[in-house]
């Protein structure tokens, strides 16, 4: 050990730097001077945007950072007389978070260079206090997005209420819904409507419930049977209400049968197995798969295709879209699912919200190209998008 220290010391005195491999083999952690410099400028402050109880420390590296073992952090509350060690870091580190403080109590900190168990103290920091915040400043951009989008939505919903007709481009899958229901009626076979495998807290499931309402109304008009299997208990409760209401709205509540809406099981593939059973035994003429789906999508869609049913799918699950596209006659892709209830119902309020969505996307495009372009003129707006 001593010999190496001496060598290292000699190396420092040499006018020519040693070859890098020699330095590596000598390990840079060896002491070069008897007492290393202490770190300087210790600043302590409350960590912003948090629930309190944390003080952040920052300091600048010891001039002998390369030769020390690390840093120790010491703390004392104003009433304490002595500093106690609360933690340590590796060398090269200039930040520390003290997570064990009490809110509203001032603390002072010292950071020390560590070498061979000995500590070389910095000047104490100015006293700092932690406290919890009531607003997260790092999330202002999210707040602005929410406010802006809510206003946009409100504006178009109100505007739509005044009766202005809003245009929506044709969505192929939806234009086929009428045909699908009619076909089942002609064949005297039921219609299968799978409202996805997501629970009610998935927005896709809510969107599916809206479409189910519209489909059920057509079914009530056409006089065919309906099967709605459910994977979740809450979804089951909701879809039953939705279907019942559709039959009431069409003036034929007596046509609604309890057995139309069923609970199956929460097990993903148990559910898929049961749907396969329904498709091969009850032979629905039309299958709807609308909502949130996972891997079971193709099990159902391919079995349905083999039974020769007419199939309309709709999902926002990006991964399942390719399978629905290849096994179904029509597929509502991504956002089309959310446009569907507006399209089918033609309800002005829903059409208005679609308009708001379009403006949202327009804003996204503007932001994308705006920030990209300005960055080439030296204006970096990227941090605007960053969320903490």
């Amino acid at each position, binding site marked *: 050990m001593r010999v190496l220290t001496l060598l290292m010391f000699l190396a420092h005195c040499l006018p020519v730097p040693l070859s890098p491999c020699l330095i590596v083999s000598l390990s840079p952690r060896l002491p070069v001077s008897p007492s290393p410099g202490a770190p300087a400028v210790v600043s302590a402050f409350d960590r912003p945007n948090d629930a309190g109880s944390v003080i952040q420390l920052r300091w600048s590296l010891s001039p002998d950072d390369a030769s020390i073992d690390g840093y120790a952090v010491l703390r004392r509350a104003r009433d304490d007389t002595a500093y106690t060690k609360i933690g340590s870091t590796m060398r090269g580190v200039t930040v520390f978070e003290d997570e064990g403080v009490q809110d509203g109590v001032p603390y002072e900190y010292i950071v020390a260079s560590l070498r061979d168990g000995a500590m070389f103290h910095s000047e104490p920091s100015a006293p700092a206090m932690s406290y919890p915040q009531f607003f997260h400043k790092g*999330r202002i*951009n*999210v707040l602005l*997005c*929410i406010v802006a989008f809510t206003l946009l939505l409100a504006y178009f919903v109100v505007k739509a209420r005044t009766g202005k007709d*809003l*245009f*929506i*481009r044709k*969505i192929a899958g939806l234009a086929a819904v009428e045909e699908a229901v009619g076909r089942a009626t002609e064949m005297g076979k039921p219609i299968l409507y799978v409202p996805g495998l997501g629970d*009610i*807290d*998935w*927005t896709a499931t*809510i969107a599916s419930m809206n479409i189910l309402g519209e489909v059920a109304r057509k079914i009530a008009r056409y006089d065919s049977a309906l099967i709605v299997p459910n994977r979740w208990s*809450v979804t089951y*409760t*909701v879809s039953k209400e939705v279907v019942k209401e559709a039959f009431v709205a069409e003036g034929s509540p007596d046509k609604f049968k309890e057995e139309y809406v069923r609970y*199956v*099981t*929460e*097990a993903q*593939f*148990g559910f898929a*197995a*049961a749907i*396969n*059973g329904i498709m*091969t*035994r009850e032979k629905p003429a039309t299958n709807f798969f609308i909502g949130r789906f996972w891997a079971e999508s193709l099990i159902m869609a391919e079995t349905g295709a083999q039974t020769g049913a007419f199939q309309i799918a709709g999902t926002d699950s990006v*991964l399942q*879209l*390719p*399978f629905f*596209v*290849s096994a179904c006659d029509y597929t509502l*892709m*991504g*956002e*089309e699912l959310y*446009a569907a209830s507006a399209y089918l119902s033609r309800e002005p309020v829903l059409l208005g919200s*679609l*308009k708001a*969505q*379009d403006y949202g*996307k*327009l804003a*996204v*495009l503007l932001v*994308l*190209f705006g*920030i*990209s372009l300005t*960055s*080439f003129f030296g204006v*970096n707006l*990227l941090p605007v*998008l*960053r*969320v903490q």
Partner: protein
Amino acid sequence: MSGDPWIWIGAVLTLMIFSFLYKDNPFYKFGEHLFVGVANGYYIVYYWHNALKPNLFEPLSAGQFLYVVPLLLGLLYFTRFIPRISWLVRIPIGFTIGWGAGLSIPAYFQADVLRQLEGTVVTPATFSNTLHGIYAVIILIGVACTLIYFYFSREHKGVLGSASKLGIMFIMIGFGASFGYTVMARVSLLIGRIQFLLGPWLGLID
């Protein structure tokens, strides 16, 4: 061949489900119905042991009376069977739906909008590697055109039409890639089942 009756049960049930590939038959029907039954029994037990017991009854019996609220909300589900007050079932549903909706809005803006935009923006730093810079521009164009495809309130004609056509091309390439890539995953599952039949059951492989 295995002498373990559990392995035999697993193997027979596996074959019952596979038989559906030929056509629907009594074996598949048995497997399917057993699956639905056992799975529901499974979830009843799990919800008891992992939700009701630790998160409701234990805190309640320990005197945490705040937990009366979820108990009452939960019981409201049963008003479905009492026609006069069946509307009360909407309260726990509204509670859950409102919670989910409120939680999802900032989350979508943060993770699906802002973060994704941040990853799509092209800056001079992107071009530190020219090739990656070009890819980033392709991604930017792809994202934009795909978004334009989902633009609803205008007929897709002219520039909008061309962009949305490019968008659908991106979408189709993406779908093909996803499909092709997924084959691997599905075959993995099949290999797993075959491994089970050949190994633990028949003892042909180790």
